Structures are given as structure tokens and as C-alpha cells.
């Protein structure tokens, strides 16, 4: 399908790079600060998986909504989620995006259409379909992106919700970030090796695409085709994007020494670092120069420092907050 709406211009590339850099630098700051034991909650970092949401978000508008998983930092930041509120949430502070009640695994920023991420695998899949149902009934513009991992495909709720989205022709885009692992468990012991996730999705009736999520221009093309497909009211769509988490499943460290992932596999994916590759491409083609790049990084750095400073100074939630929140 031809896409005429948003071509991958140099300007868009620079914006994708900026988003990826922001995610990477924020995540690295979290990893660095985590050992100070002030962010006391289970934390799943997105380092290595920055490309898919950064690319897709360049194609989304304010009308589009997102739901996500336990590994939501990149999705939240790419959609424009507030950085200060995010870092405060990790610190359990009242100024956090969920008032300190949810932590890293329960993020929300309704102002930018980030409608919530939760910790139970597959838990937000039907929520996203429900948001799309409401859009259809209320005749509102926009689509709903449902981010999932390869593990969520194994949950029954995926089939139930995907099926309904097809039956009702709902404006839903499933984005499966396939990093090959569910915690330490490889795809090999969880799904048949010769069956592709995107083919399975297609057999449910979802228009499906598959690609290397770290390949910027190809992923941009797939995403814009899928977004256009949905916006033309042709039904829900599914994109499977291969990508890779660099660090441990949960927590700030590397865990290569545990050897549950082949060293060659790790090296292969690190050689495809989307940030390094796009930076090089933009520098080589003289779209940006080193000083522009440094300005981008310095600005992010400043924002990150401010976010941490504010989070540490912020008060904890009032002691009656949990009770008041339990019922509306």
C-alpha cells in the first residue's frame, strides 16, 4: 500500500533519533541511579528496544492512544509522556504520574494519550480494544496502539481480544516487540519454532506485517502502512518487530554471565544499535553535525537531571491517599 501522508524526511529522522536518545539516556540514568535504592520498585528497562516506539510515535497524533506492558518506559516517553512525572513515579512520590501508587510498571499520561501500562502479561490487550470500541461508538478520531511482547501472544486473552477487534473492525494496532524472551525463557520452549507470530496474527484476521524493528526506514514504512490501513477504516492491524533487550529482564544490570542468551546473539543485536546506526547515517549524510547532536544530548541531559532533582525533593503521597483512591 502506498503511503502518502508522512514520508521519512530528514526532519522526521532527526526527530526519531532525538526520541531514541531521550529514551536511552533516561534509561541509563535510571540504571545508574537504581543502586542508590531510592527507586524501590521492580523496573524493566527498554534499553535496546528504543526504535519501534520512537518510529511509530512519529506517525501518531494526539488523537491516537497507547496502552502498554510492564516494559513501558520507551512507549511512555515516545508518546510524549511527562518526564518529571515519570521519574517521580519511580521514586514513589506524590508528583508521580500515578501518584506514587503504581511505580515503573503502572504508568499513565492521559494528556498525551498514554492510557496506562500494567504488570500482568496480556492485561492491557483487551483494555486497548475496549478503548477502540469506545472510539468507534463515540465516532472519535484516532487509533489505539497496543504494545505487547512475544510472551503476551501466549495468553488466551490475546486471541479473545484480537478476534473481537476483527469482528467489529476496530481501529486497533497491535505492536508486538519480539525480543525472543519472556524473562529468561527463550521462544524455543514457548512457541513452535517454524510458526511466525505475524502469520498467526494474520490468521486471526489482522492485517499483519513483520520486520526488523531496529531497521529505521523499513520499520517506518511498515508502521505508516499499518497506520494508514487503520485510518482508512480497513480494520485492525498487527506489526511484529524483532528487537532486543540489552540488560536483565527486570533491574538495572547486564546478565550476560547467566548465559541464557547466546553471546553471538547479544553481540549481533548490539551491532545493530539503532541509535548508533541512525546517528552515523545522519552525520555521514550531513543532515546534522556533531554540534547539533551535542545540543540534542545536552538538552536531554539537563531535563534528566532536573527530573531526578525534582523527584528526590518531592514529598511522598499523603497517608490517606491510598484509602481515598480505592473507590471513586
Amino acid at each position, binding site marked *: 500500500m502506498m503511503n502518502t501522508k508522512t514520508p521519512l524526511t530528514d526532519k522526521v529522522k532527526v526527530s526519531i533519533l532525538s526520541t531514541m536518545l531521550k529514551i536511552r539516556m533516561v534509561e541509563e540514568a535510571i540504571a545508574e541511579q*537504581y543502586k542508590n*535504592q531510592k527507586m*524501590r*520498585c*521492580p*523496573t524493566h528497562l527498554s534499553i535496546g528496544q528504543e526504535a519501534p516506539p520512537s518510529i511509530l510515535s512519529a506517525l501518531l497524533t494526539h488523537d491516537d492512544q497507547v496502552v502498554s506492558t510492564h516494559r513501558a518506559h520507551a512507549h511512555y516517553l515516545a508518546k510524549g509522556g511527562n518526564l518529571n512525572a515519570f521519574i517521580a513515579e519511580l521514586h*514513589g*512520590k506524590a508528583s*508521580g504520574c*500515578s501518584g*506514587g*501508587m*503504581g*511505580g515503573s*510498571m*503502572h504508568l499513565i499520561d492521559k494528556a498525551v494519550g498514554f492510557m496506562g501500562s*500494567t*504488570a*500482568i*502479561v*496480556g492485561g492491557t490487550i483487551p483494555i486497548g480494544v475496549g478503548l477502540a470500541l469506545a472510539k468507534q461508538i463515540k465516532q472519535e478520531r484516532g487509533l489505539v496502539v497496543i504494545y505487547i511482547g512475544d*510472551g*503476551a501472544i*501466549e*495468553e*488466551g*486473552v490475546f486471541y479473545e481480544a484480537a478476534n473481537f477487534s476483527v469482528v467489529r473492525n476496530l481501529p486497533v494496532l497491535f505492536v508486538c516487540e519480539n525480543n525472543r524472551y*519472556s*524473562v*529468561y*525463557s527463550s521462544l524455543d*520452549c*514457548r*512457541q513452535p519454532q517454524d510458526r511466525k507470530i505475524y502469520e498467526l496474527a494474520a490468521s486471526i484476521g489482522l492485517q499483519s506485517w513483520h520486520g526488523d524493528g531496529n531497521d529505521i526506514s523499513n520499520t517506518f514504512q511498515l508502521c505508516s502502512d499499518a497506520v494508514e490501513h487503520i485510518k482508512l477504516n480497513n480494520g485492525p492491524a498487527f506489526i511484529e518487530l524483532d528487537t532486543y533487550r540489552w540488560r536483565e529482564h*527486570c*533491574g*538495572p544490570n547486564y*546478565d550476560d554471565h*547467566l*548465559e*541464557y542468551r547466546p553471546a553471538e546473539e547479544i553481540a549481533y543485536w548490539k551491532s545493530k544499535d539503532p541509535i548508533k546506526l541512525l546517528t552515523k547515517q545522519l552525520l555521514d549524510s550531513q543532515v546534522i553535525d556533531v554540534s547539533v547532536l551535542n545540543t540534542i544530548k545536552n538538552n536531554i541531559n539537563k531535563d534528566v537531571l532536573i527530573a531526578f532533582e525534582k523527584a528526590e525533593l518531592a514529598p*511522598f*503521597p499523603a*497517608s490517606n*491517599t*491510598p*484509602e481515598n*483512591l*480505592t473507590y471513586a
Partner: protein
Amino acid sequence: MLKETHQISFAEAINETTEQLMSYDESIICYGLGVNDPGRIFNTTKNLVETFGDQRVFDMPTAENGMLGIGIGAAIAGLKPIIIFQRVDFFLLAMDQLVNNAAKWRFMFGGQSNVPITIRLIIGRGWGQGPTHSQSLQAWFAHIPGLKVVMPSTTEELKQLLTASVLDPNPVIILEHRWLYQQKGNVPIQIDNRWLLSEQSNISTGDELTVVSSSYLTTEAKIALKFLQEHHGISIEHITLSVLAPLNTSRIIESVEKTGRLLLLESAHETCSISSSISHQVVASSFDKLKLAPVVMAKPDWPEPTTYSGTKYYYISAYDIAQKICEMLAITLDIEALQKQGHHDVPGDWFTGPF
């Protein structure tokens, strides 16, 4: 006959028991997400796949409901599956298979088949586990006739309880508290296939008040009661309840008839809890022997907040228990030494999250 024992941790006791059971009975299989991964379910499944092979010990897809149902099917066909879930909260996806199939299969087909499965669930706590990684839902399970619900309190009793659970012809849910995993205790070296699911055991005897606890709250209660005994000479009867369903309160009732005062330590919310059931049974049977209405200490009626500040007073501590006992006995004592030092959201320095 005295059994030979050795000192190992709660997690090691689970591992050792499982290994001995699988050697003893070839129909036992063991699976769950992470069973064969480098973490080995906090080391409780260590060496199992190496010893018994991947036909009997295997990892699974992230598919709780289906995989529990598959275990039920295998059990009906004569296997004895041990199925492990790293959090109670994840297991909620399997409630349909549990309640509609496992609990009722024997009953609704006139007793023609049993479902000998053992479901190991871990209760999370600490380091911001938060609303969906920390729930204690034993009362949900105990409410369903046909299920047995077990909640070990100590490393000492773990081996007997796990053995009896696995060899039991019924579906058994065993809830393990993450904060017990590191605790050491004297454990019988060998399993015994005659062991039964024993309901209640005495940790201490006394005559002023009866305290009932399960799971990790037993640890907090022991600290409080030891302090009150040693520093203030208060004699309290402490009973741990290990089998929550079917619920047998005879030992508790006997004790309350002696002491006249009952304090129930509840690791869940109070409404519809095991403790409120026990309280009801005690009142119904021994109303005239009570000097005081039974008291339940429980979690407040809201989900666990993730924030550090939100868990400070969420869980019952040894200090809270001692304070409540003083109140019940109408005495004033210096219990300040029971205030926990250091971070409230970890069981010890060894625990630094994130999971």
C-alpha cells in the same frame, strides 16, 4: 521415632522435598514459567531437570489458564503435576480452570476421578511489589469446596506440608511467602510418605491469650511473643494454622477456651478472610468462655501502594502485634525495642529488589 534433621533454608527445603518426591514417585511432573531458567524459581527447582529430564521438568508458555487446565488433564490421567507460578497475582488468570474444573471434577462426575495436582504460588512483598505483585488471596481459594489450601509458616514444617500436598489425591494450593525463602530451620533429611496435612501446630503454650498466625506473620508473631515472654513474663499460646481449607479450628477453640482471648493475625484484608471465619467459629462454639471479643489484625482495605511510604504501615509488624496484645490484656509495657530498624520494605539486607 526421632527423625534425623539438618539445617537448610525454606527454599532449599522446597527443592530437596521436590527432588525426593520425584525420585519416590515417577508420576510426579513439575512445570511452570522459569522452572528451568537460571533463577530456578528462587532456586527451588535447582537440579530437577538435570536429574529427571525435560519430560518431567519443563518450562511453559506464558499461558496460566491453559497450562493449569493441562495439568488437571494430566492429573486425571494419572500423573501428579506440581505447577509453579511466581506470583499469586499471575495465577489469577487460571481461576476458571481451578474453580470450575480442578475443584469439581471429582464431585461432578460422581467420584470417578481425582485431580492430584499441587499448585505452588508465591506471595510477593517488598521493594514496591505494588498492587499486582503482592496479593494474599488464600481466602478466595479456601472458599471453594474441593480445594485444599496450605500456608507454611516455617522451614521446619515445609517438608511435611509439601510432601503431604503432593501425595494428596486432591488439588492442593500451597502459598509460599517470598520473605520466608531465606529462613533456616531443622528439616527432616528424608521425606515420609505417611505424612499427613497437619492442620495446626503449637509454637508456644500459654494461658493469657491465644495468637493464631500463618505464613510470614508467624515470624513477626514469634518476635513479639518472645519479647513479651522474656521481658515481661507474659505467657501466650501461639498456634500456627497451616491448612486453611478444609478449615479445622478444634485446636484453636480448645486454646481459646483456656485463655479466653483470641488474636488472629491475618495476612489478607479482613473482609471475608480466613480470620473472620475462625472468629465466627470460635464465637459460635465458645461464646461464654470469651473474656473479650476476638480481635483480627489485617491489611487495610486498599491495594498495596507501590510507593515506599505507602507500605510503612500497611503490613503488621512484631511491634504492632505486641501493642495489640497489651491493649487486649489492658496493660502498659515498654515495647519500643520491637520497633524495626532500617528499611521496612525488605526482610533483610540481602534483599535489594527488584523482584
